[in-house]
């Protein structure tokens, strides 16, 4: 049991080491981006896949943490623990504010309220030029560091992003297995019965949103250092919608599917986008096909292919 539990992270670490040793600069930065955005998508999966809460404002958590880290880095220097701390604090704080606003109403209202909330955060980032740089965003950030070591090169960024992704995957797994995670699934499946059992829907969902906010914030805090830039599109609702697309392609409710979906989406964007202008058409077709044919996403499709007969 403990061996199989350790096997997956070990395999992940080994794969990471191999990739880090063999890949070029561009690929490493690209992979780091996949891992960071994938972590944010993973945190969205906690809300959508386990709580049934379709938030169309998730980029607000990720992006505001990215801005907070970038602004702090300009003044304090980019020390890794400080950045992570600020990102997690910002993500959690924004999630708390968001929760107070959006968790009062049912599915469609929640969607609209989350969208409105996210767009308000975007408006602040876009118009508060003195602090956020407005439409230009923030450039010229110092490279990430940890004490005497500089972590600004592509290889260290990739390793950091990989460690964060693995750590988040572990947190997400234990969250889902925890009493809170089980209660969250209960509030999705049987809200009335859960209330009869003494759970307060709001507090279960609110705490889940805080966890998701902290995770998205951690990912957001490293994101600016991949390209040494953060712009308002990292807060915009189209990124929230893109995260949902990534999640669905990968597989709602399957935790590692979040990374798979992010990788597929960003690879389409980068490689098909270089070859034709119609990459959005490809993404849309893939997305609709996934919804129509494989509503559980690519992750469960893989599982079904690899372990025939065994229940996943």
């Amino acid at each position, binding site marked *: 049991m403990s061996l199989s539990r350790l096997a997956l992270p070990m395999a992940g670490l080994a794969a990471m080491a191999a990739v880090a040793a063999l890949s070029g600069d561009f690929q490493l930065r690209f992979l780091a981006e996949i891992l960071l955005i994938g972590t944010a998508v993973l945190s969205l999966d906690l809300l959508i896949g386990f709580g049934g809460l379709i938030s169309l404002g998730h980029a607000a958590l990720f992006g505001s943490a990215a801005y907070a880290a970038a602004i702090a880095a300009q003044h304090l220097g980019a020390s890794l623990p400080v950045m992570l701390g600020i990102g997690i604090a910002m993500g959690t704080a924004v999630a708390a504010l968001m929760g107070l606003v959006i968790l*009062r109403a049912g599915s*469609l209202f929640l969607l609209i309220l989350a969208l409105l909330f996210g767009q308000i955060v975007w408006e602040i980032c876009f118009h508060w030029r003195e602090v956020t740089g407005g439409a230009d965003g923030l450039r010229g950030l110092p490279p990430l560091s940890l004490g005497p070591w500089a972590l600004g090169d592509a290889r260290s960024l990739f390793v950091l992003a990989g460690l964060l992704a693995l750590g988040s995957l572990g947190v997400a797994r234990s969250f889902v297995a925890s009493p809170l995670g089980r209660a969250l699934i209960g509030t999705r499946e049987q809200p009335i019965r859960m209330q009869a059992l003494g759970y307060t829907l709001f507090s279960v969902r609110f705490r889940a949103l805080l966890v998701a906010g902290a995770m998205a914030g951690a990912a957001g805090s490293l994101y600016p250092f991949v390209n040494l830039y953060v712009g308002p599109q990292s807060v915009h609702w189209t990124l929230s919608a893109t995260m949902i697309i990534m999640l669905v392609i990968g597989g709602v409710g399957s935790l590692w599917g979040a990374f798979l979906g992010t990788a597929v989406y960003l690879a389409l964007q980068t490689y098909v986008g270089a070859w034709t202008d119609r990459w959005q058409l490809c993404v849309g077709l893939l997305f609709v096909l996934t919804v129509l044919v494989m509503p559980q996403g690519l992750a469960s499709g893989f599982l079904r292919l690899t372990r025939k007969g065994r229940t996943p």
Partner: protein
Amino acid sequence: MMGYAAIQVLNALSFSALLLLTGLGLSVVLSLMNFVNLAHGSFYLLGSYIAVHWLASGAPWWMAFPVAFLATALAGALLERFPLRAFYARPHLMQVLLTYGLSVIFADLMRWGFGAQILSPELPEMLQGVVFLFDMPFPLYRLFIIGAGFAMALALWLLFDRTMWGAVVRAAVSDRGIVETLGIDTRRLFAAVFMLSAGLGGLSGALGAGMLAAYPGLDEEVLILALITVVVGGLGSFGGTVLSALVVGFALTFSKVWFPEFANLAAFSAMIALLLARPNGLVAPPLRQL
């Protein structure tokens, strides 16, 4: 000052008229079929492009609006057949995902077919120019939008409230099963309502092209505003949608006047406050609790 205020009120009214027409299309599908159609913005933008090209073609200008209505209604009918019909009984999440995915496809197809530049229609001579109100110029076309928009809304209200067909639709909203037992094919009814909704989207796009132009990305902007209108108004209530179209139109227009820098911020905050104060919408229809 008086003139300035009057102009802004008219601006808000013309914007509200567009929101009303788009929102009504969305609202009727949402409340009748319990179906969330995030591809509604695509119908709007398609209608805009049809109007722009029709008005440039030299054909009789007034035909642009019925043509946009019919063309988008036809598109809606095809879409309803496959794949939307299969999703009526599915949960909201799947509907949201499917229709959002479709809207991504349509957005890129329209960018492909109509180009990425901003297209403005050549307005017919009759509707060009300005009228002077309190010595302030106001585009004549916007008066036309207000007139046409509210006339269409009135016609819709008559259709839904005063005709037998409307009574059937309303009956199907409250109890589909009973309507079926009366021998009415609700599947065809739903298809017709969906066509009407798509056509309304296209018609409002055709009307709105003279005010907002047509460009990639407009579909999403309009969709969001229409969704807000419907949700703020309260699902399934005609009066609520009218009221909230006015509220949203005025809030967006006047926040641009008062806080030009933070216009959307102010308007969105106001709408969040409204939704928090009245979580069931401005006019909550009487609901049967099961």
